[in-house]
């Protein structure tokens, strides 16, 4: 697997905020070796200037720092500077604590400082790769001359249509059929009729039942056991942990940048293209 901002493409830039000089130096060295461009800061001081000059493709934040803690900084950055750049905690706290803080601060994930170099690089690539993805999935499906069946389940009509437009634009060159439903029961009927699909976007807040309940039921059916599902959550509902427990492959918290959705869609479709020749 090739990772990093490396060859050919423009290098991905990462902003590291950590009060430990050793941690900064070590992360910078590891990431630069993988082709990333790294800027680092020792505290929250200077973050606004760094973000104003360039929005990075990922922000890696330590939690325990003198002055402003990383989780508090994350909230400020998210609210005032960037809605879409992934923010990931990188801390020596234990995983359970980090998980809780991540959910509370609404960041995209966390990495424990105890992980190996390989794990660190893989975790970072996972957050960056989807955003750098374009319609590279197209050729794999084009070659097969098969129609991709995508399903969008969302009770907001405008959002549903906007997501459809984004998917169709992304998969230009492929034959795509997008089916849509507004509620759980319509969605259930639609999927029964289709008997399967290549990907489903399922909003959590639906009329009727919760989206995760629909996902749970679909996973009990052989025809939908491996169908890629992206769960769309909102602030205040059950969230990522429950969505994944119900069987969703990926989770996006609304509002999300459409290019993040495109990245996840691409990843899931490519995996499926490889898995089902």
């Amino acid at each position, binding site marked *: 697997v090739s990772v990093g901002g490396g060859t050919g493409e423009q290098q991905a830039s990462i902003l590291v905020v950590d009060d430990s000089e050793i941690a900064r130096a070590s992360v910078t060295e590891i990431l630069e070796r993988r082709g990333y461009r790294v800027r680092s800061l020792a505290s929250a001081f200077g973050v606004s200037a760094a973000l*104003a000059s360039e*929005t990075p493709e990922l922000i890696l934040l330590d939690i325990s720092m003198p002055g402003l803690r990383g989780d508090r900084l994350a909230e400020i950055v998210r609210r*005032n500077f960037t*809605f879409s750049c992934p923010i990931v905690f990188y801390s020596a706290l234990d995983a359970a604590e980090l998980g809780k803080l991540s959910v509370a601060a609404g960041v995209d994930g966390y990495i424990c400082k105890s992980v190996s170099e390989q794990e660190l690089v893989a975790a970072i690539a996972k957050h960056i790769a989807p955003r750098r993805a374009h319609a590279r999935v197209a050729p794999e499906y084009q070659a097969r001359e098969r129609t991709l069946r995508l399903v969008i389940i969302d009770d907001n009509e*405008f959002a549903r249509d906007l997501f459809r437009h984004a998917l169709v634009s992304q998969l230009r060159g492929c034959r795509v059929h997008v089916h849509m439903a507004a509620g759980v029961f319509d969605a259930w009927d639609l999927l029964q009729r289709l008997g399967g699909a290549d990907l489903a976007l399922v909003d959590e807040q639906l009329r009727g039942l919760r989206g995760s309940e629909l996902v749970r039921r679909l996973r009990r059916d052989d025809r939908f056991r491996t169908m890629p599902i992206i769960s769309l959550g909102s602030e205040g509902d059950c969230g990522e942990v429950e969505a994944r427990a119900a069987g969703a492959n990926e989770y996006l918290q609304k509002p999300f940048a459409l290019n993040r959705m495109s990245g996840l869609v691409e990843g899931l479709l490519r995996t499926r293209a490889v898995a089902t020749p």
Partner: protein
Amino acid sequence: MSQTAFGARRPHVLLIDDSSVALAAIAAALKSICRVTARSDPARVEWTALDAVDLILLDVHLPDFYGDDAVEYLREVKQVSAPIVLLSSLAEAELRVRAGRVCADGYLSKDIGAEAIAAHVHKLLQPSS
């Protein structure tokens, strides 16, 4: 009331913001200079039956998606031809980049307040000389 590019017709501004406080404050400030259609959700706009709109003020941070991600869709699918101006409390640098990325017609920071937003809208509605 000042004369505008629209002759005797009062210009019409569509304002979309999910924050009821912002929606009410900005709509109230705009009322002296134009007709305002205020909506909390793009799904509540009758896009096909909409009277001629001269300017759209679109909040970036909506509950289901980001307003800037909807600009291209509004133009291509909903056939919106009116200028679209992004509204947000994001830092100016980020807002400028986002507006530029989707070719929005402009951006206004919510932090300047409803009256100042109305003053900018008034300027945008003037005939370009």
